[in-house]
């Protein structure tokens, strides 16, 4: 009886998450595109709902809501559904849309060919996905082929890599964007002079193109006029060649000039865009929100440096954390400060808070990053493919965050994850995360440093002297 009630509650919340994913897709991602294939929207919303269910089950685990056996059942159900969608459904649809967008397939217009090609591409994907497990020590030999561990372990590798890359870049980029210290000084006169240069460049391009057009028109009229008098034979041909060549060369020279100038205009435009963005940031930093984020930026930079340091220590000394921060924090408070309080009660509440914050920030962070990337790279042809790729990445990301979150929870709550996800080598995943995080953070620092040095105002200063 209680199982039925629990299932009803679960399904209601899942429907709510599904609705949220549906609306997010419609309002944010596909803001500028018409939805031709409803199945894409459906798949995205389903993946989102399944991912959120996983997080919800963790929270329920900590709080002790619902019956333990029904929780276990729903965990298993959810994981199987996620794996099915990540390994079968999404890659199949991605392959289908890629194949139908290929030009030579469009010209052939045969449905069966598309389906067979899709199956072929999907089999290739499965092969590589399977091979992914070989170089990593993630499984012990006693697992069967179709067990849940095979799928989860490989999905975990990809997901953890993605998480570490995004974390590394985010940890470095966050203070860089928030802190005023890094703001480059941009005045209105800088912007105006850059804009003026850009418009002058446009004028020059236009003058040259006008000359090309006039020259072409003249040659056309000359050819049409002399068409009747054109004498056949060798002399006529020679005359035509010699009379048309000066204008022809002129046009070629002009065309080359125009190409170079157009390249220059693109670069100038990008500099103008950069200056506009800087000005916006300076204006924003003077507002209250901007000041708040500026202070947060200092905290984030401290956090970022600590994280880099800790990752290096973990790798160098081959250290694996055994206790989670909550238990260790409580231990420190109890042992060193001598304050006595109900450990069990507080550990439950604090883990609920910490895990809840982690979940919410990671979902929100991923959705925002996804939206930004989508606006940057999608076009009307590729929008379906890109959104399905994002759904796949989202699923893998969330499964891996459940995997890694295990370390942040006290021992009694880790049990359910260990039970459900099976006997994986969790320590490997943490080590892998540290390595990729370090690599990503250091390369982001290098990249941002180079970009900062190439600022347009510096160019202008150099040009003035």
């Amino acid at each position: 009886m209680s199982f039925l009630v629990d299932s009803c509650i679960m399904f209601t919340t899942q429907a709510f998450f599904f609705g949220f994913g549906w609306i997010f897709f419609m309002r944010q991602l596909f803001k500028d595109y018409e939805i031709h294939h409803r199945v894409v929207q459906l798949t995205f919303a389903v993946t989102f709902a399944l991912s959120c269910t996983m997080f919800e089950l963790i929270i329920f685990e900590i709080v002790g809501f619902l019956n333990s056996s029904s929780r276990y059942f729903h965990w298993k159900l959810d994981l199987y559904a996620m794996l099915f969608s990540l390994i079968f459904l999404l890659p199949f649809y991605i392959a289908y849309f890629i194949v139908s967008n290929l030009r030579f397939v469009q010209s052939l217009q045969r449905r069966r060919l598309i389906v067979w090609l899709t199956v072929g591409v999907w089999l290739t994907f499965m092969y590589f996905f399977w091979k992914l497990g070989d170089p990593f020590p993630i499984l012990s030999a006693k697992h069967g082929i179709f067990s849940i561990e095979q799928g989860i372990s490989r999905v975990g590798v990809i997901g953890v890599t993605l998480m570490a890359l995004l974390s590394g870049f985010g940890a470095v980029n966050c203070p860089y964007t928030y802190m005023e210290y890094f703001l480059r000084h941009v005045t209105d006169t800088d912007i105006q002079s850059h804009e003026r240069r850009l418009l002058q460049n446009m004028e020059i391009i236009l003058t040259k193109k006008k000359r090309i057009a006039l020259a072409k028109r003249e040659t056309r009229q000359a050819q049409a006029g002399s068409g009747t008098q054109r004498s056949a034979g060798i002399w006529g041909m020679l005359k035509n060649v010699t009379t048309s060549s000066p204008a022809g060369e002129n046009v070629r020279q002009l065309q080359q000039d125009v190409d170079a100038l157009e390249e220059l205009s693109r670069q100038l435009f990008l500099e103008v865009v950069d200056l506009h963005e800087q000005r916006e940031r300076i204006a924003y930093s003077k507002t209250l929100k901007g000041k708040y984020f500026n202070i947060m930026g200092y905290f984030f930079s401290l956090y970022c440096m600590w994280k880099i340091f800790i990752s290096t220590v973990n790798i160098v000394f081959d250290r694996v954390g055994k206790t989670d921060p909550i238990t260790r924090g409580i231990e420190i408070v109890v042992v060193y400060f001598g304050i006595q309080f109900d450990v069990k009660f507080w550990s439950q509440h604090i883990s609920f808070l910490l895990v809840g914050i982690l979940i919410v920030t990671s979902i929100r962070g991923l959705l925002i990053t996804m939206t930004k990337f989508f606006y940057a790279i999608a076009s009307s042809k590729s929008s379906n493919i890109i959104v399905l790729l994002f759904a796949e990445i989202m699923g893998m990301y969330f499964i891996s965050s459940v995997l890694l979150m295990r370390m942040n929870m006290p021992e009694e709550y880790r049990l359910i994850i260990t039970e459900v996800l099976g006997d994986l080598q969790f320590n490997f995943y943490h080590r892998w995360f540290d390595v990729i995080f370090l690599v990503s953070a250091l390369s982001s620092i290098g990249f941002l440093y180079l970009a900062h040095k190439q600022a347009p105002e510096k160019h202008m200063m150099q040009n003035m002297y």
Partner: protein
Amino acid sequence: MAVPVEKVKVLVLGDSGVGKSSLVHLICQGEAMGNSAWTIGCNVDVKLHDYREEGTPHEKTFCVELWDVGGSINHSLSHSVFFNSAHGLVLVHDLTNRKSQENLRRWLGEVLSRDAGKKYSGEPDYDEEVFSENQLPALVIGTKMDRIPDSNLEEVLSRSSSVAGQCRADFINLDCMQNKHLAAGTTNAVKLSRFFDKVIERRYYTQDSRGRLGSQERRRPPSMTRTFSPTFVQEKID
């Protein structure tokens, strides 16, 4: 040798990926563009247009500058650099994507508010007031007509007239990859050249601007004022 040819500036606006660069290439070079990359900044091209004044046999060549402004969202802060002193607008939308047509309102608002010096707020009431003050001649073009399956063609084409109706502009539907859609003599080409005539007249021959060729007293004939023409092209694709 340099013949002083006067020029007018026409902006080509629309969302990213609707086919503005292909359209401009088709108009100016007379042939379809092979490959296209995302426009960064602004592509400019010129078309020499022969304008014949009403009632005179005298023909004069004008140079129509087509400024194809790249429509990507990342650069939206900097578009307005190109918008000053425009004499005509070509609004381009994608027939396979309904949202690109709705976004044309936003584009029109941006251009007009830049001219008026106000910041565009994007509310519907504001749109109406701004559109009714619109003095720039406008033309709405729908692209990618070949991509619509025949069954939807009628419905899509009738829908595409709504924005044009709001701006009281003329409109064309075509496919930028086929030369014949803008070949001389077709309805599309006639509409395009009528639009250019309107732009040139507005710039050089109305009472507001300085007099040219003694046409200061001349009013624009009634047929040239902006009326909504319900004819739209139904070029069948083979």
